[in-house]
């Protein structure tokens, strides 16, 4: 195959754009103001409750915690109950340790750092945002949250601070204040475990991504 991709592109681009051009070429179109959205603009007090009710509908599970020191023990418990081995892939232990320097990972858990490679049963991440409207958690790709950790392990455990829950999808984008040129490579809005209904419309969890999603919801002490 020997096409000059650049030249090829230029020609095609011109061909397509010739057909698309508007009468008013130069003007920047003003996005019309959207009519008010008739869905609840949830009040701050109830965000956690709404998040949890939507979240549970997605076949995910949760435990509330009041301190990050509980995380290793709860991961161990979850692994003992659900996982086929004790391998955990995570890149947030530093984050946890920063807050809790004395944090210890109990045996027999084995911690792996870096991207997931399919050999760890459990992935552990720290969510950047939660969305009440849909019961979703949002994970942004970074050194602390490589995307493969969200998808390759059989079980995904995610820590979410209830203070990071926003009312709806728009507020989530706002909070992330994304700008072209400095975009994270991937942003995953995750709502429940992986699922498929491709065989006889029967819902089956764990198609290619995690079979289960478990949230550790960090609640402010009352």
């Amino acid at each position, binding site marked *: *195959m020997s*096409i000059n*991709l650049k030249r*090829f*592109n230029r020609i095609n681009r011109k*061909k*397509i*754009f010739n*057909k*698309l051009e*508007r009468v008013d*070429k130069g003007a920047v*179109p003003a996005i*019309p103001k*959207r*009519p008010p*959205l*008739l*869905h*609840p603009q949830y009040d701050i007090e109830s965000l956690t409750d709404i998040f949890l009710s*939507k979240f549970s509908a*997605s076949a995910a599970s949760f435990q509330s915690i009041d301190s990050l020191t509980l995380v290793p023990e709860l991961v161990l418990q979850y692994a003992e109950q659900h996982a086929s081995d004790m391998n955990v892939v995570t890149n947030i232990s530093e984050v946890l340790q920063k807050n809790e320097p004395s944090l210890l990972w109990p045996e027999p858990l084995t911690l792996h750092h*870096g*991207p997931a490679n*399919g050999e760890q049963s459990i992935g552990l991440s720290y969510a950047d945002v939660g969305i009440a409207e849909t019961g979703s958690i949002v994970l942004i*790709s*970074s*050194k602390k949250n*490589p*995307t*493969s950790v969200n*998808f*390759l392990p059989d079980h995904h455990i995610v820590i979410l601070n209830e203070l990071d829950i926003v009312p709806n999808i*728009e507020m989530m*984008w706002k909070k992330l204040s*994304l*700008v*072209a*040129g400095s*975009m*994270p*490579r*991937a*942003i*995953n809005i*995750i*709502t429940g*475990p*992986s*699922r*498929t209904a*491709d*065989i*006889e*419309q029967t819902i*089956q969890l*764990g*198609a*290619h*991504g995690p079979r289960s999603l478990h949230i550790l919801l960090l609640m402010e002490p009352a």
Partner: protein
Amino acid sequence: MPSTAPHNQAAFFRAKSSDALLDDSLQAALNHAKGGFIKKRAEAIADVDSFESYKQQAQLVKNHTINNLDYYLHLFEQNVEKNGGQVHWASTPEQLNNIILHICERRDAKTVTKGKSMVSEEAYLNASLEAAGINVTETDLGEYIIQLAKEPPSHIIAPAIHKTRQQVEALFKEAHDLGDRQLDRIAELVDEARSQLRQKFLDADVGITGANMLIADTGSAMIVTNEGNGDLTATLPKVHIITASIEKVVPDLESASAILRVLARSATGQAITSYTSLFSGPRNVDDLDGPDEFHVVILDNQRSQMLNGPYEDMLKCIRCGACLNHCPVYSTVGGHAYGWVYPGPMGAVLTPLMTSLKQSKDLPNASTFCGRCEEVCPMGIPIPEMLRQLRNQEHKEHLTPLISRLSLAAYMWLTRHHRLFHWATKLTHWAIRNATSNSIIKTRLLKHWFEARELPLDDEKGTFLTQYDKIIKSTVKGQQ
């Protein structure tokens, strides 16, 4: 061996739909599917305060974008480049294939994993990659099943909806070397696919996915899935190629949110799918995973011709599949009968516009005009009206049978000549009443009707207008 037959078979709708009605396992699969999507969508819509307001917002976004398509495509291109990715333009499906082949060959790719992409189906991309010696694996479970079956998808969001679990089991047995392992349960089938595809994800050189939306403001592609296969395809290989088409662009993330609110509810009856992901370029410096090349190939394939014409609204289609799920014809004959990539009502509009009206002239006629497609369309696309426009075009281009053109023209002429019209009505009245089972009416003219049904007889006292006329006359006489 190409995994999908690279032929447009829309010309054979009549034969294929008749076969479909007699295909027992297809009918079993369709019957099984019937109602499921409809019920889930209805529940999802009832669950929100005002789905109508969601629809309005989404339509506003799309109308605005379609009116400024050049601006937003240009902005998208600039921003993808800012993010370190590349945008490629393809006027035709062949060009799309050439661009992707070129990218694959430059990176010496041997294996490709694919997320579901209807745009790539338009181009028969798999066949083209395979012809170049590249091994392609579809990773969406439904797509994987039909790839094994060497069939095209029969539904735009549930590609293997026409397969029963027994058929899937047989396909896996043939392809996977199962020994005497049984895969009776659906859970076992899903697990089998999961373990087979796991290594493919890890080994692939290039990952190709579709996109549900292209976000101009941030230069991102939004991909909506439930299985997570799209994310693995976009994350593990060293090159990520996105196939999309020009009408997929939206201004910004806020606009995308409006469409997200109607998309999954209309498609699968979910408030949101398991995974909604935004991919905006190659891996950043301190990322631990992700591809080092990011390409977006944008296909036109006749779409720009639809702008500013009677079919422009079709560019608002977000490929949710609600019109398929609610179409009585689609639900009875399945997707393959339609013969090309897009089946059902939206396909009956798109196939003639994107391929050839002459080759797909049955499709616009394969509708009872029941109007349910338009009713459930989150974008409010007037599909029946477009099918009617296509029928007008067929009539103008003499693509309809001469006999039906002539008899319809004669009938329409009669409607404007009431005395002759009523004379003709009386003649038909007489003919039907006196038709024996071997008369030309039953064996030729209305043969198809009589194959399944009787024709109710009319009143022996004559047509209503005849009877009414007599009554009026006798009343007048009585009054005199």
